[in-house]
Every structure is written in structure tokens, then in C-alpha cells.
């Protein structure tokens, strides 16, 4: 579901302004939720580069998020590195991991890619869970110091930390956006639509996918280090398969292939989780139902669905109508229903 350009710009400006100003008006509790939205949203945006733009369904994306958080944590807690350089080490760790896993996963075709990323991701979870002397195992790794930007005071205050994370996310999101509209990004979309044709046109499709994979891993890593800086604690659940699946859900809820939509998807999941957790313990059950309902009724994402419904009501003047056929919708999702095998 793609919106018209001016409308998109308007949404972005409004969203940006809201993100800048909200912590000034809302209770600090909401600032915490906004921080989580930004962090998970950035991770999902990096996944969208693979899932929405390149057509690679990675089901192990939490591995890069968590590995970066752990690398940063281990550097700070066990090696006494200062927090800011440790963040750099964490991002680098995630990028290196993606560079390694990419070598194994990128060769594989559609479904194999999905399973391999899933299995490799769970391998990293296993490492975090069992390598107790380094990671602290099931108990997690506490004691990650807050970031110190060199002003002499570390970012302990939620609002100050929020603006730091917002800046980092905005820069990363802008760079990701530039990447998706660059010739490289267009080539990725070409690969999503038809890899064979792109290869025939002389593109090194493997290299394109590989670079996208490493960039996505590194960006998820940045999100992971921001999370660790905020949370001060990492545990194996941060790179569990549930996290990977949640990231995919966030991308799809926000509309895959829309990049900024992932922020909306993340906001929905974070706020819904906190709202529901206040009333019931059954968040996971509800999350499962949200998954199923999304696939059944809103595969184009919540925003896309809402706009399409609104468009139908106002005779389609505001926004283009929803794609009529399921194939078109899935085309947007990066799934080619008609493609055989590969």
C-alpha cells in the first residue's frame, strides 16, 4: 500500500513533530513506551529492507539485535570498555555476524532462506542461554552502564535518553531511506520482483542481497545497542525466536516495503502489549491471534487496510484503492503467489 507523495510527507512531518514534542507533554511512562517503539521500530525497519524491499523473509532478525546488545554488554561488564565505544563494538559485532550468516543464508532460495535464518538465529539464542561464563546464561547480563556522551553526566534520565535514541534512530532511518531510493535500493526491488531477470540484466544479485543483509544486520545491531543502553540489561529472551517473529509481525502490521510504516507497527505492538498486560497475563495468546488475524484480514498492514477502507468510503479520492487481487497484495509483501519453486 503506497500513499501519494505529499500525503506521505505530511504523515512523516506530523509523526516527526509528535515524536519530538510528546515527551514534553506526556507522563514519563509514555516516554518509556516511546523509547521501546523507536528501538523496535528501527529493528523492524532494518528487517523491512530485507522483507519488503528485497523479498527475503528473514526469521532470525532478533539474533543481530540481541548479539549487538550482548556484545556491548560483555564489552562494558567484562572488559570495562566505555559505553559509547562499546556501542560501536556492538554494532560491529552484529554486522560481522550478519556477514558470516549471510554467506550461508543468501545462497538459499525462498523457503530455505527462511528456515536457515530461523535456525541460525536460534543457534545464537542457544549460545546466549548456555555460555554462562560470558553471557550469564538464563539470568542475563546486568550492569550495562548508561551512555555517557562526554558532557560529564551519563544519560540516566528517560527523557534525555529518549532524545539521544530519537536522534540515533532518525539518522539511521534517514540513511536507510536514502538507501532504498538509491539505484542500489531500486536494484533490490528489482530482485524482489524477479531475480532471474535482474541477473540477466547483468546485476550481481547475490552481492546485492548480501550487502542488504549485512546492512540490515548492522542496523538491527544499532537498535540492539540502543535497547541495551536503555534497559541496562540483556537476557536470552532478547534474541529468542519470539522476538524475530514479532519483528516480522511489526513490519507486516506497518505495511512491508514502506520502511517508516515499521515505526507505526512497532508503536502498535508496544502500546498494545502494555495496555493488555495491565489487564491479563495472556499477552502471548493475544499476540498469536493478532498474527493470525493480520494474515487473514490485513496482509497489507493495518495502515494500508485503514487507508483502503477509508478510500472505499470516500470513493477513492483521498488515496488509491486497495489492490484488488490477493496476488497484488502479496506482491507488496514480497511474496509471489504464482512463482513456482524458487
Amino acid at each position, binding site marked *: 500500500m503506497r500513499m501519494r507523495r505529499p500525503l506521505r510527507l505530511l504523515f512523516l512531518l506530523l509523526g516527526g513533530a509528535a515524536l519530538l514534542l510528546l515527551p514534553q507533554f506526556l507522563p514519563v511512562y509514555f516516554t518509556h513506551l516511546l523509547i521501546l517503539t523507536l528501538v523496535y521500530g528501527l529493528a523492524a525497519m532494518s528487517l523491512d529492507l530485507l522483507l519488503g524491499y528485497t523479498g527475503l523473509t528473514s526469521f532470525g532478525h532478533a539474533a543481530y539485535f540481541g548479539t549487538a546488545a550482548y556484545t556491548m554488554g560483555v564489552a562494558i561488564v567484562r572488559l570495562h570498555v566505555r559505553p559509547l565505544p562499546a556501542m560501536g563494538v556492538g554494532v560491529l559485532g552484529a554486522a560481522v555476524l550478519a556477514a558470516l550468516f549471510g554467506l550461508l543464508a543468501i545462497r538459499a532460495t525462498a523457503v530455505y532462506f527462511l528456515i*536457515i535464518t530461523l535456525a541460525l538465529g536460534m543457534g545464537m539464542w542457544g549460545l546466549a542461554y548456555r555460555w554462562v561464563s560470558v553471557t550469564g546464561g538464563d539470568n542475563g547480563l546486568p550492569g550495562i552502564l548508561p551512555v555517557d556522551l562526554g558532557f560529564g553526566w551519563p544519560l540516566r534520565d528517560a527523557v534525555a535518553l529518549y532524545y539521544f535514541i530519537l536522534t540515533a534512530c532518525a539518522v539511521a532511518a534517514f540513511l536507510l531511506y536514502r538507501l532504498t531510493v538509491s539505484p542500489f535500493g531500486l536494484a533490490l526491488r528489482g530482485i524482489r520482483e524477479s531475480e532471474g531477470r535482474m541477473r540477466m540484466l547483468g546485476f550481481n544479485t547475490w552481492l546485492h542481497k548480501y550487502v542488504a543483509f549485512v546492512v540490515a544486520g548492522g542496523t538491527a545491531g544499532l537498535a540492539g545497542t540502543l535497547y541495551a543502553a536503555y534497559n541496562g540489561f540483556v537476557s536470552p529472551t532478547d534474541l529468542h525466536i519470539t522476538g524475530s*517473529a514479532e519483528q516480522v509481525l511489526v513490519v507486516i502490521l506497518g505495511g512491508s516495503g514502506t520502511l517508516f510504516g515499521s515505526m507505526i507497527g512497532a508503536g502498535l505492538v508496544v502500546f498494545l502489549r502494555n495496555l493488555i498486560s495491565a489487564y491479563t497475563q495472556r499477552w502471548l495468546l493475544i499476540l498469536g491471534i493478532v498474527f493470525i488475524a493480520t494474515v487473514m484480514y490485513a496482509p497489507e498492514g493495518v495502515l494500508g487496510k485503514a487507508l483502503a477502507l477509508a478510500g472505499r468510503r470516500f470513493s477513492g479520492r483521498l488515496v488509491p484503492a486497495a489492490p484488488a487481487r490477493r496476488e497484488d497484495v502479496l506482491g507488496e509483501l514480497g511474496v509471489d*503467489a504464482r512463482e513456482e519453486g524458487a
Partner: protein
Amino acid sequence: MEFWLGQMLNGLSFGALLFLLASGLSLIFGLMRIVNIAHGSYYLLGAYIALSVVRSTRSFTLAILTALAVLASIGVLMQRFFLARFYRQEQAQVLLTMGFSFAFADLALWLWGGDPQRLAAPARLARSVALGPVVFPAYRFTVILVGAVVALVLWLVMERTRLGAIVRAAVDDQEMARGLGVNVGPLLTGMFAFGAALAGFGGVMGAPFLGVYPGADSDVLPLAFAVVIIGGLGSLRGAVVGSMLVGILDHFGKALFPELSYFTLFVPMAIILAIRPTGLFGRG
């Protein structure tokens, strides 16, 4: 020597259990291209159902039958009303099965609580057998035996019967099978249900020696995936070889490098993938 033999037998029994999961996973994938994330949940539900049935009736056989029936029904419902609508839309199907796996995990937690529980092995098998220098639980021998029998029966059915021929035809070319008058729809539903039941059976068999606890589903699932990645998706022979390999590697990993145990499994997997991206017996 005793250590190696003991670990080998432990690994084999775990491999036999993994085979019950991986063969269904592989079959479902081969026929329907569904990557079933909920397959671990079938294992978990099978184990919990067995726990409840054994506690109320004291019959292990009844537990097996109940688990088979319940999971086959769940399989029919999931395939018929949800997955069949998304034929060949892999991403949509994965998300669906992922949603189901979350829902099942939470339902199990709700119904059976969060404490780890253990199912007692049937009284007749709750003893040890001496095998030369190694003393080995009889129950684990039984599991190896059961795995071998299931593998043999599956192989015989697939290779020697009319039903097997139809399934193989549908795996190779579904349109052509349809064209030749095979009613593929019910066949797919049936095979999905069969795979689910087999995983549930795995849960019952695994409960006495692995325990039943929340999270058992996501513990076994990556191992089952490792089996099919190593063996090759859709291949029965691959599932046999893969599950033995993974079972043994996992146990030696745990015994030799306890801190890296889970990870040691994924190193050989990575090497095999690097050499043969479609697995040992996969056809790509």
C-alpha cells in the same frame, strides 16, 4: 569406552524422537511447502495431553491414542480452515503457523501451569538393561525401537503402497497428480493431520525422559529444523540420517562442551549447508 557407548545410545534415542518430529515436518513441507513453526507446539501439546491422561487413567496406551486423536484434529482444522487458503504463499503460511505456535504455547501455560513436570514411564519399562559394560534405561531403548519401526513403516507405505505412490506423485507434481484424478485436497489435509499426530506422538514418547515444561516447543523446533536442513526438506531418508546425526551431535556436544552445547550443533549444520545448500538428500 563406556562413556562413548552410553552417549551414543542417548544420542540415538534422542535422534529417534527427533525423527518423529522431523519426518512430519519434512513430509508437510514436501507436499505443501508449508514451513510449520507450530510443529514444536504439537510436540508440547502431545506431552501435556499424555500427562493429563496418564494422571487420570494411568494408561500410557490411552495417552498415546488421545494425543494422536487430538493432534490429528488440530492438524485438520489448521490445514483445512487456515493454511489451505494460502496455498504456496510461504510467508503468509509461516506467519499463520507462528501465530498458532504462540497461541498454543500460551494455552498450554494457562491450562497446565508453568512448573516443569515429569511423566512417569510405563511401569514395565521403568528399569535398566545392561548392555555389556553400559547400563541403559529400558525406556530409551524402546524409544529407539519405536523410531525405527515408524521409519520402516513410513518407508514401506511410501515406497510399496498405492497411497505412497499417490503421495510421491503429489510431492513431485501436484498439478499433474490432480490431472490424473487424484483428489489432492483431502490428501493434503490428511497428510498434515498425520504429521501433526506424529509430532504429538513424539511429545508423548519424549515426556518421560525430557520432561514437560513451557518452552519445550521452542527447544525441540530448531533441532527438528536442523534435521531437515541437514537431511534435505521433503526427504524421508534425509530425515532418518539427519535426526541420527543431530541426536548424537547434540548429546556429545552437551557432554563435551556443556557451555556451547546448543551451538555445537549449528556448526556442522553450517558446514553441510556451505557444501550442499539443499541438504544431504534434498532436491532443491
